[in-house]
């Protein structure tokens, strides 16, 4: 009945196994119970792509892409929407859901009574949200290709780029959720995500803006994702890509550390 009490700390395999059990739980719940919610999430960015890319694109014509060459508006806006959908997917998964499990369903209180600890919970939830972003990004990228919005084999790099955007915003969302006090606090999340979506050079080239505003936009956390995806999908990678990757990685790690500390404090007082 008793397992051996002779332990030398958890093995690496054990450390990886623990969060994966919670990830499996999320798949179990979401894919099984509400598959249509998952499916509808796939469609959302594609609707934007059709309306803004094709509909508005018809009115706009061509715009200058990352290399300076003129590209059709749809091809310009598509990578912006890809990065945005990764952000939105991560926020959708990692804000209200986390808050509900923390304070309303008390799910995590049950989880910390098992061998899983608060760190495992943070890793699992951020990992799950990131994986979801990866899947959605794959479908979106395939749609872009089908619509002729992909210009180079570099575009395949959009997949890891969008996944990184997902990881950064999932960590940030998790961290933010640990500080929320009530449901109405989540309107503030929308008030951050919405301007990021609309003003991160998603819909028009940065060069359209006055210089001071360009600097502001470049500092926004969604901008590196948009720029990265755009460089790749239009086949013009540049050295700045490294800067963007570092920006997003630092954001992911910092927010991850805040998440870990805060959730530990909340769950194991």
């Amino acid at each position, binding site marked *: 009945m008793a397992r051996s009490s002779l332990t030398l700390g958890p093995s690496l395999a054990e450390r990886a196994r623990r969060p994966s059990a919670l990830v499996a739980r999320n798949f179990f719940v979401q894919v099984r119970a*509400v598959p*249509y*919610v998952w499916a*509808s*999430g796939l*469609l*959302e960015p594609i*609707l*934007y792509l*059709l*309306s*803004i890319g094709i*509909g*508005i694109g*018809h*009115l*706009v014509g061509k*715009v200058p892409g990352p290399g300076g060459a003129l590209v059709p*508006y749809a091809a310009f806006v598509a990578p912006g929407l890809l990065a945005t959908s990764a952000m939105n997917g991560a926020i959708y998964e990692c804000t209200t859901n986390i808050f509900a499990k923390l304070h309303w369903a008390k799910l995590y209180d049950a989880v910390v009574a098992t061998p899983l600890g608060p760190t495992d919970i943070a890793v699992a939830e951020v990992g799950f949200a990131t994986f979801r972003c990866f899947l959605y990004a794959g479908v979106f990228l395939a749609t872009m290709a089908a619509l002729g919005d992909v210009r180079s084999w570099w575009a395949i790099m959009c997949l890891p780029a969008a996944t990184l955007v997902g990881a950064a915003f999932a960590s940030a969302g998790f961290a933010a959720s640990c500080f929320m006090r009530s449901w*109405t*606090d989540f*309107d*503030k999340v*929308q*008030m951050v995500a*919405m*301007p990021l979506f*609309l*003003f991160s050079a998603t*819909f*028009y080239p940065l060069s*359209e803006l006055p210089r001071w505003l360009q600097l502001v936009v470049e500092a926004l956390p969604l901008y590196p994702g948009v720029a990265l995806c755009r460089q790749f999908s239009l086949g013009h990678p540049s050295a700045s890509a490294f800067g963007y990757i570092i920006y997003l990685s630092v954001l992911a790690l910092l927010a991850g550390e805040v998440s870990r500390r805060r959730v530990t404090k909340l769950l194991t007082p």
Partner: protein
Amino acid sequence: MQALPAPLRPLSYFWVSFRRTWMSTLSTTFLTPLLYLASLGAGLGALVGHGQRLASLGGQDYVSFVAPALLAATAMQVAIAQATYDVWGACNPWSGAYRSMQASPISVGQIMTGHMTWIAARALLACTLFLVVSAAFGTVHSPEALAGLAVGPLTALTFAAPLAAYSVRARHDQPFTVVFRLFMLPLFLFSGTFFPVSQLPVGLRYVAYALPLWHSVELSRSLYAGKFGLLAGLGHLAYLAGVAGIGLVLARRSYRVRLSR
């Protein structure tokens, strides 16, 4: 304080809870269309025909084309958000507002009309604020736009009534996500809001004509531009009022079924 007439008594509940959350509510219902107007209207507008008037946009520049559509879309968004989560939450057997109203002399029908009136009032408020801001963007070309304010509550009822009929009987709130993604979003994106419906393939064009938001957008756009045509205008009004009316009948029935069990 004078007692409100019974059908309006539910309003006091909504008013009290609104006073508690108006800050965050305003940010979503008002700032969202404003940001869209700034980004997609003004920002993108600079790229569309270099900010000039275009024949394909009915002789308007792009911001002026988008602004009235966003007014209609705002009314729709307010209505859908309220008629899904708020109506559903109010039915909650333990903490729902409807349950406590039912314990008073207010009838089930009055609960329904009370909530619908509240939603229409919220839409009117959001649209009024939006009209002021869109005027600041130089998109209002006629005093007729003031009449556009009536489009807000009417649009709100068109969406809120049939949706409330559904929400009040819904068992789970998960389908609402789908309502937002597969109903509200396509309407928002393809009802002639951001580009003329005439750009759509022929088949889809007729689908768009059947969408209630297209009628609201057309109505609002004609009033902003001072080109309200009596026949077309009345047609749009009749369509919206028709959907709202059918919705109210359905809602009344659903409320009866749900709240008296």
